């Protein structure tokens, strides 16, 4: 039964990680790029209005970084629970 306990714990941590990463995913795209775009457009980033920048540039950069963070953290998690082979 210890094995299944281990598995449950692993899955729980995995879900928590997914929840955090997907919240960031939602915030940069649907949040900054769509829902609050007008408010953010009052702020400038060089020649960009910030909301517009998130919608056409920033969100995409964050997506790429999110996946690589996920890869790194999951590899660590796999190791912690002995699921790396």
């Amino acid at each position, binding site marked *: 039964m210890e094995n*299944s306990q281990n*598995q449950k714990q*692993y*899955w729980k941590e*995995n879900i928590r990680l*997914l929840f955090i*990463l*997907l919240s960031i*995913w939602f915030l940069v*795209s*649907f949040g900054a*790029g*769509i*829902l609050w*775009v*007008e408010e953010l*457009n009052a702020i400038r*980033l*060089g*020649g*960009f*209005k910030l909301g*517009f*920048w998130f*919608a*056409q*540039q920033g*969100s*995409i*950069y964050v*997506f*790429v970084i*999110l*996946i*690589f963070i*996920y*890869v790194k953290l*999951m*590899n660590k998690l*796999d190791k912690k629970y*002995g*699921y*790396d*082979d």
Partner: protein
Amino acid sequence: MDVRIWTYLLVGITFALYIGIAIWSRAGSTKDFYVAGGGVSPLANGMATAADWMSAASFISMAGVISFSGYDGSVYLMGWTGGYVLLALLLAPYLRKFGKFTVPDFIGDRYYSNTARTVAILCALIVSFTYVAGQMRGVGIVFSRFLEVEIETGVVIGMIVVLFYAVLGGMKGITYTQVAQYCILIFAFMVPVIFLSIQATGSPIPQIGMGSSGSDGVYLLDKLDGLSRELGFSEYTSGSKSTLDVFFITAALMVGTAGLPHVIVRFFTVPKVKDARKSAGYALLFIAILYTTAPAISVFSRINLIETVSEKPYKSMPEWFSNWEKTGLLSFDDKNKDGKIQYLADVKKNELNVDKDIMVLANPEIASLPNWVIALVAAGGLAAALSTAAGLLLVISTSVAHDFVKKQLKPNISEKGELLTARISAIFAVVVAGYFGINPPGFVAATVALAFGLAAASFFPAIFLGIFYKKMNKQGAISGMVIGILLMLFYMMKFKLGTFDEQIPDQSEWWFGISPEGFGTVAMIVNFIVSIVICRFTQEPPKEVQNLVENIRVPSGVKEAHVH
């Protein structure tokens, strides 16, 4: 050398390269044919996925669409990249662990039902065929514009090339040609825009150039907002769609991306779960290079266009203007007979019609780049169209040979027989796709964008629940998929094709003000609700299936994608 010779030369060399790779990487087994033997490195798979993903539309049309819609165009940028986060975090690793060949494989086994498998096959075929017809058309268009052959001839040449490497090499051939195609298409996309960026702002990095100022010290985006206002267009950085619609379209494109069978299947080709995660990261990185550059092209070329034409005498137009007039992509009608070009938002007074594709295709000429760059853009456009077409054709042939013939019709078919069936169905699929490329039914152009809605409405909930909700049963999943895809098809026919009314109903009749493009999100939510409600009132899935779910949640002990 003249542009045509350069184009023949570059297109010829790249085609020879694809065929050479196909011969080198012939498929010897069904496993080679379906999942490239399961031994593709994450980096190569990332490149192949990127090429598979970026179609003629991404390469040729997207920057132009954004150019004319400004902020509203962000739905494509976020939608077609954000989906990879969902794919990497929610689907790819688990499907790789499951370790079969196709999406219907997963649906059929996870929902212990051949009905579910058949529904999944039908959904995969509907999604892939709507998508592939557009690609073959894209091949024809590139040929006709750059090599001055008929669109039909172009489609046939494209068919032969795809046929050759898809039928011979299967997934293995496709994977390694796609790696080459990615390199060609990204190079062809970046070279002109780097020059444009230097000309406009002095910065060689278009992503930075887009937010910089020109020689007059005014930021490009501010200048473009100002020009748009003057000419009566909506401000470039604010757009005109409702926030709700932008939200729903973006969501439909993201979820649809994660649910497209030809993208998902790519993650079956890497050796381990770890590799599936990593290769999703690489894929998005490679895609992001093009997707963050495209909006920069949109800005540079829109400003170039307005500054070149607006209120300028027709006689003083540069050479590229008349070149593209010949193709019909640019047309000028001097309504007020003043000899000058009025480019305005007001349709009655506007004298210039510009096809959106010109924003990418004419770039090298607008920036006065050498002829070989123009030829390179042609080769890049073809690489983009061919790589996507091949990936889709593979899904179609696998669905027929593996999911339908092997899994249902003739389970005892030999390995050799199955491989032959796969090849024959690939030939069949190419011919059908080519037919639609030559005789495009009116609905193709309208439905390509909606393939995402269909994928979102059918596959995503079934796969997601299959992994994250252990108690999900076949009754729930099947009814969810059927109702989801039918609802989406209905909405699409009603509001995009006008099937049920005298004419296409007006926007004001859209349900909740959501466009057909964004309706995939609604249909997906309905799918989720139906699946869960029905599941609650019907029998739990058998213990073995629940064990299967437990098993795919853990990354270790991965089996090779196995032959049954």
